[in-house]
């Protein structure tokens, strides 16, 4: 506030001083000039007057009329402004005060004498100026400012006509002295001065006011406004701006101040935002620590930010995931999951860049919809990820990914499905038992108990290659029967054991404590299954005492079961199969032993041997396939033929595969050598495992079983026409074909 007064005070003072000075100087210069002009003028008037006086007196005096001169002078003295008017002689005495000159002239006169008329008062003068005129014979003028009077001494020259009466000894006859008042002049000058002062002062005041107003409006007010704005800004209110739209220097200043303030405001807003974000992050952190959902936030670089829920790290069993890409997080094994990673990256790219596309369309190609992830050897999770675009200020900044753990849901769905199947098969089993009696099942239970018991006794023996192959075959065989009798639980568990043994055989799984435990656990489950089946049969036995006689022969049971099996599998494979069981025999001795091999060959024929309907149509064959199973008693042999009219063995492909697998040496091979490849352990003619033929389960198990029985296998095949497997085992019954 102080600075504000001082600026204005200084400006006003300066202005006033300049104004006063200029007004004073102007008045002084003007009046001085006017006075000198006026004085000059009166001086000139006096000179002229004097000349006129001289001439007048001279002419009057020529006729000796001193009294007229005297009276004339008396009259002159009455003129306004004439304070004193006198003629002096050179000796300093007043002219016309005595009769000397009259007497002198009268002495020379003869006829006419001049009367002695009254004289003027005799006085004398001896001023400096008077003496100077006598000396210099030039007029002297003197001005007395104090008395405002002007005195004029003027020499009266002794002209030729004067000398007649006054003699010629003198150059100057006398001095005329005028003393005049300058009052009128001074008054005039003073009046002019006052007028001018009034004029200048009023002009000055107007000028002053105008300058002051202008200054106030253009400089002081804006500067004060700017100052005030800065003051307000200093108190922390940064939402103000100097309201000044001008193109001059002040405008520029205002602009700079505004710029400064908005800069401050931006910084403050930024700080504020940072604080808000910090607070929010803090809140998010708390939220993310406690929420029971797998959440994470991807930034625009498609990287995981520091914001992810603790639940997520527990779900995925990984810590410190910030900075990873989603692909690195979900599929750390870049080599094995190259395709999945590429899909996921492409999906995210689309999510971030194709903002015109709506989420429901993008989510229709979500690659993380029921994705099965192997976290480590023992932990597998099934997840679904939902993606959410987070838009802030119209810009998409982040994508939130919400993981749902579907593991339990999917598993229980599977369990439900298994349970449903179990119930269905239980009903079927009851129907079968009703039809065929419990004997078939007792045989199955015995077979299972034998196989599982042997495994349990040899849990520490898994590093023995020979034993593993044997275990594999026995489990495979039980699985086949379980499938045939429709025990999906037993089938599934056997399948698991089979896989484990296959892995041990291939060397892809280590023989250790964990393997032992897994096998023991599966055996426990299998035992439970067998107990259930036994209970079922026991209940049935109690219920159906005495109805044994109505039971159908085991061979007929076999026929029905295998028919059902063919129907089920062919439906599943889109194949239209006519199954023919051809035999003249009423019973087949040793059937339980040979049964697994027959199932295997039938399954093989359905899966690999026969084409689907369209393939057959395209190949010009009828859409219906023929599959025949024949039992023939020939001499001391039981001959079993499994014949299909399918595609036949692809010998070149078989040969190629055999060489690739190292089962054949490169070079030319006999057909029998090539066919032999089929019976080597671990051979599979298809790259992928199917639920029907299993994984890597070859004909080696069949060959081994048949060999044990002292039999052999032959194959007939014709490309495009079909394949026949012929099993030859020694006949076990008596000559009439009656069961021993």
């Amino acid at each position, binding site marked *: 506030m102080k600075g504000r007064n001082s600026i204005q005070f200084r400006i006003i003072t300066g202005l006033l001083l300049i104004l006063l000075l200029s007004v004073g100087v102007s008045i002084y210069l003007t009046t001085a000039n006017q006075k000198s002009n006026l004085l000059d003028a009166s001086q000139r008037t006096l000179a002229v007057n004097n000349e006129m006086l001289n001439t007048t007196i001279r002419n009057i005096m020529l006729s000796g009329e001193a009294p007229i001169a005297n009276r004339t002078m008396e009259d002159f003295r009455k003129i306004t402004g004439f304070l004193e008017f006198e003629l002096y002689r050179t000796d300093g005495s007043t002219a016309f005060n005595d009769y000397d000159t009259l007497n002198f002239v009268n002495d020379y006169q003869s006829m006419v004498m001049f009367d002695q008329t009254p004289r003027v008062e005799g006085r004398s003068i001896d001023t400096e100026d008077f003496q100077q005129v006598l000396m210099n014979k030039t007029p002297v003028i003197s001005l007395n400012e104090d008395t405002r009077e002007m005195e004029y001494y003027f020499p009266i020259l002794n002209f030729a006509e004067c000398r007649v009466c006054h003699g010629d000894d003198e150059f100057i006859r006398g001095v005329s002295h005028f003393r005049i008042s300058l009052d009128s002049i001074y008054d005039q000058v003073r009046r002019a001065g006052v007028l001018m002062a009034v004029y200048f002062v009023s002009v000055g005041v107007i000028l002053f006011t105008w300058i002051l107003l202008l200054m106030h409006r253009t400089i002081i007010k804006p500067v004060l406004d700017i100052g005030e704005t800065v003051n307000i800004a200093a108190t922390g209110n940064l939402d103000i701006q100097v309201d000044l739209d001008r193109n001059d220097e002040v405008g520029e200043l205002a602009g700079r101040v505004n710029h400064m303030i908005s800069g401050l405001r931006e910084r403050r807003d930024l700080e504020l935002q940072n604080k808000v974000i910090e607070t929010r992050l803090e809140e998010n952190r708390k939220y993310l620590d406690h929420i029971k959902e797998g959440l994470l936030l991807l930034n625009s670089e498609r990287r995981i930010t520091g914001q992810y829920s603790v639940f997520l790290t527990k779900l995925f069993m990984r810590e410190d995931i910030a900075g990873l890409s989603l692909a690195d997080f979900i599929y750390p094994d870049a080599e094995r999951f190259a395709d999945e990673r590429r899909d996921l990256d492409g999906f995210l790219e689309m999510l971030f860049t194709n903002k015109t596309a709506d989420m429901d369309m993008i989510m229709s190609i979500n690659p993380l919809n029921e994705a099965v992830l192997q976290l480590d050897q023992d932990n597998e999770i099934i997840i679904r990820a939902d993606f959410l675009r987070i838009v802030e200020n119209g810009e998409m900044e982040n994508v939130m990914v919400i993981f749902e753990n579907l593991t339990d849901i999917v598993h229980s769905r599977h369990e439900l499905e298994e349970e449903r199947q179990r119930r269905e098969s239980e009903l079927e089993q009851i129907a079968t038992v009703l039809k065929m009696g419990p004997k078939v099942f007792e045989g199955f239970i015995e077979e299972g108990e034998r196989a599982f018991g042997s495994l349990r006794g040899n849990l520490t023996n898994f590093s023995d290659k020979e034993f593993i192959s044997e275990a594999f075959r026995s489990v495979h065989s039980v699985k086949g029967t379980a499938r045939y009798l429709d025990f999906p639980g037993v089938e599934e568990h056997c399948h698991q054991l089979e896989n484990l043994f296959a892995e041990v055989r291939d060397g892809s799984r280590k023989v250790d404590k964990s393997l032992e435990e897994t096998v023991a656990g599966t055996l426990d489950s299998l035992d439970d299954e067998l107990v259930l089946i036994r209970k079922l049969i026991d209940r049935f036995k109690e219920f159906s005492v005495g109805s044994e006689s109505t039971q159908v022969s085991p061979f007929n049971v076999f026929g029905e079961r295998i028919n059902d099996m063919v129907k089920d599998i062919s439906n599943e494979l*889109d194949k239209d199969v006519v199954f023919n069981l051809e035999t003249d025999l009423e019973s087949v001795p040793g059937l339980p032993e040979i049964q697994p091999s027959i199932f295997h060959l039938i399954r093989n024929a359905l899966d690999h041997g026969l084409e*689907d*309907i*369209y*393939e057959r*149509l*395209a190949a*010009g064959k009828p*859409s219906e396939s023929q599959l025949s199973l024949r039992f023939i008693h020939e001499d001391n042999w039981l001959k079993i033929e499994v014949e299909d009219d399918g595609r036949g063995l692809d010998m070149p492909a078989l040969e190629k595969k055999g060489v690739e697998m190292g089962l054949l040496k490169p070079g030319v091979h006999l057909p029998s050598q090539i066919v032999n490849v089929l019976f080597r352990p671990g051979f599979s003619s298809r790259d992928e495992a199917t639920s029907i033929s299993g994984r890597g389960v070859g004909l080696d198990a069949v060959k081994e079983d048949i060999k044990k029985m002292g039999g052999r296998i032959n194959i007939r095949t014709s490309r495009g026409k079909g394949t026949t497997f012929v099993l030859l085992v020694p006949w076990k019954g008596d000559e009439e074909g009656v069961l021993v």
Partner: protein
Amino acid sequence: MKAQYINPFLNATMGLFKDFLSLEVKSGKPAILENPKDLSEVSALIGLAGETTGAVVLSFSHDTALKVVSLMTGTKYAFLGSEVLDGVGELVNIIAGNAKKDLNDFRISISLPGVITGNNYRINWPKGVPIITIPFQSSIGDFTVNVSLKEAV
């Protein structure tokens, strides 16, 4: 020509008629179309190109064509006008388009559908590839879906 390549067309047809037109349809035994002239009076054709080539033909009798398009649009048609032909073309377009989704082995693109009537025409089926014809029975009449697909080499 395997089931995995034909089934998508079969399923798409089933889906179209059952779910969209609410018609009970039953598929019959597939056969080889020995003589392409054996197709019915109104046939809509769509070409398949890309990693494999082929064609799909949806073939109706005159009456069935009228009924199916009437059902589709909710407008009664009495004669084979351009709208009916257009509608039949749209049906085969939907079958081919939907089938693509399940043809996982190769990418194909489908052509614009074309519709032909009468018997005086020839279809450029893929050379040397048999045509599978699948008969369908429905309450508005029978029709066939005919597929020929040259598999990826």
